[in-house]
């Protein structure tokens, strides 16, 4: 059935993939539900793709409600009773809508409420009242209840504004009227916002984004979610909120073990929200993971934000030996082994992503999801189409861009494991691993986004004036 899906005007690229992801999650919970062509989209006539109004076809009303309730970017999903470019047209459309669909929700013993909403304009409360009074042609029989109505009806208006005010251009004024099937609960955002978090690091993941990542990763009860770059645990907190068990690793022992004391560390970040604490936290190197040979298909999702060297660079073990190259390997004297702090070497993005894909291919269950951020220098991204990392075990199902500066953006990639990790793949991975080690300097150079982001402006290919006025992805 088709519904009207109204989004918040935020993170525009992330909106449809989130709904698709949740649709799949809830559809697979129900038996007899085809998962192919689960979700279909249409835009209202003459609306821009960045418009908050979309039509979506979903398998059932129940799934629609669940999606809306868990989503962060869906404001509401509505059964559309009518739409029009003016109020006469709307009235005609509503009158034409099948009686049996309407009367169900207009009965005497029910309570209701009508909400007037707008996008890109303000409607005063007098005007809102007028609009509601104008709906008398709908035979409402129930009583009004503003606090806890059984049924909520929405009248939503959007105007044909120009394209210069930062909003997506809508060519035609449209009015929608519909019954609310489900609405978002963004109240969890103030609870989880980073400024209330006890233990924070410089690259802690923003709460809203962390929830979006957890949704893309299908985090839920009975699932084990792993973050190999756990830091202060901000991504796992979101996964744990949805009931998943969590496990995390980091190469920096100060972050995972010590935090800022006994009352301010990764564990307390979970305690703070009454979430069950991670079932495992360890210090390990993603470049040389300590998993036992033969261990595979342990995790249902791997969700992470790899260090890409702009705000924080990656590190891996085996420092001095590699850096000095010609000098013989450093041997730790036997008397100093206890309590020795190993030096680490820089970890290039190319190698890091390669390791991440290989680890995920091995450690994810079939159908498990890998969700991670991949940085793109916008000079490349704008000029050429972006090339994402690939792996024979994985199918990329969505990529969502978030622009961070005029120089670079990050893309949230969601990949599903579709192929079994074979012996041959393991061999290829081992070869690549060796190659990375030998071409250490080269990979550091190629994976260095930092210089692209911070180099001086001269010679930049991006012409500031050539940018369009409307830049939706900055929202």
């Amino acid at each position, binding site marked *: 059935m088709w519904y009207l899906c109204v989004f918040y005007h935020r993170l525009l690229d992330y909106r449809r993939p989130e709904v698709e992801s949740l649709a799949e999650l809830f559809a697979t919970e129900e038996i007899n539900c085809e998962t192919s062509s689960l979700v279909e989209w249409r835009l209202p006539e003459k609306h821009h793709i960045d418009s908050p109004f979309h039509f979506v076809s979903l398998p059932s009303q129940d799934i629609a409600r669940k999606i809306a309730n868990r989503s962060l970017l869906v404001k509401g999903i509505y059964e559309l009773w009518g739409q029009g470019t003016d109020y006469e047209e709307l009235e005609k459309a509503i009158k034409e809508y099948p009686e049996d669909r309407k009367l169900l929700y207009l009965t005497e013993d029910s309570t209701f409420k009508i909400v007037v909403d707008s996008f890109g304009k303000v409607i005063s409360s007098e005007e809102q009242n007028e609009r509601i009074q104008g709906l008398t042609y709908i035979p409402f029989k129930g009583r009004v209840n503003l606090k806890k109505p059984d049924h909520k009806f929405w009248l939503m208006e959007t105007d044909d504004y120009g394209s210069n005010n930062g909003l997506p251009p809508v060519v035609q004024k449209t009015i929608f009227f519909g019954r609310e099937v489900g609405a978002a609960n963004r109240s969890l955002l103030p609870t989880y916002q980073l400024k209330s978090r006890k233990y924070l690091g410089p690259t802690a993941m923003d709460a809203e984004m962390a929830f979006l990542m957890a949704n893309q990763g299908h985090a839920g*009860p*009975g*699932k*084990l979610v792993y973050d190999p770059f756990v830091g202060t645990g901000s991504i796992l907190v979101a996964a744990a909120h949805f009931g998943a*068990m969590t*496990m995390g690793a980091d*190469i920096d*022992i100060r972050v*995972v*073990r*010590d935090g800022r004391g006994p009352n301010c560390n990764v*564990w307390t970040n979970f305690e703070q929200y009454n979430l*069950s*604490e991670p*079932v*495992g*936290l*360890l*210090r*390990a*190197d993603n470049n*040389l*993971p*300590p*998993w*036992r*040979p033969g*261990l*595979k*298909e*342990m995790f249902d999702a791997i969700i992470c934000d790899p260090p890409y060297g702009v705000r924080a660079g990656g590190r891996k*073990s*085996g*420092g*001095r*030996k590699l850096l000095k190259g010609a000098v013989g*390997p*450093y*041997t*730790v004297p036997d008397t100093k*082994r206890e309590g*020795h702090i*190993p*030096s680490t070497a820089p970890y290039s993005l190319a190698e890091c992503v390669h390791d991440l894909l290989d680890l995920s291919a091995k450690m994810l*269950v079939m159908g498990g999801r890998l969700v991670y951020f991949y940085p793109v220098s916008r000079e490349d991204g704008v000029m050429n189409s972006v090339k994402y990392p690939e792996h024979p075990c994985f199918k990329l199902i969505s990529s969502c861009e978030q622009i961070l500066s005029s120089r670079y953006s990050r893309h949230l990639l969601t990949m599903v494991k579709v192929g079994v990790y074979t012996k041959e793949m393991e061999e290829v991975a081992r070869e690549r691993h060796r190659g990375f080690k030998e071409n250490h300097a080269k990979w550091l150079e190629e994976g260095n986004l930092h210089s692209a982001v911070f180099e001086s402006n001269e010679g930049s290919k991006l012409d500031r004036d050539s940018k369009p006025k409307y830049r939706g992805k900055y929202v």
Partner: protein
Amino acid sequence: MRLLTHNMLSCNIKGVTNGFPLKLEADKWVTKEVDLNADFLRGVFPKIEWSALVAAARVLGFAELPEQADASMLSSNDFLRRFHHALLELHVEEGALVCPETGRKFPINKGIPNMLLHEDEV
């Protein structure tokens, strides 16, 4: 560190071939209650090295796991409860994981095993 983590880890020093299971040395451990999720336990059971779990649980004074286990036992609630307790509720705070081949000790402090290798072990 839960025994689930212990069951997943091995010593990955270059050249080591028999780095599993790591011998558990525990100086301090606690029991932390975790909600039992039967679906998770059934899913994770085939991936667990049973004898390593039994041995590690013994170190922590929990001897209620059978020597051998197979999937048919998962229908017993009593078995699930014991499995759950051993796998997820015993938490080693201080101790070490010892490589069976080289004797290298990976310390566990404040519940976090430190699996990072020294420069000459990579």
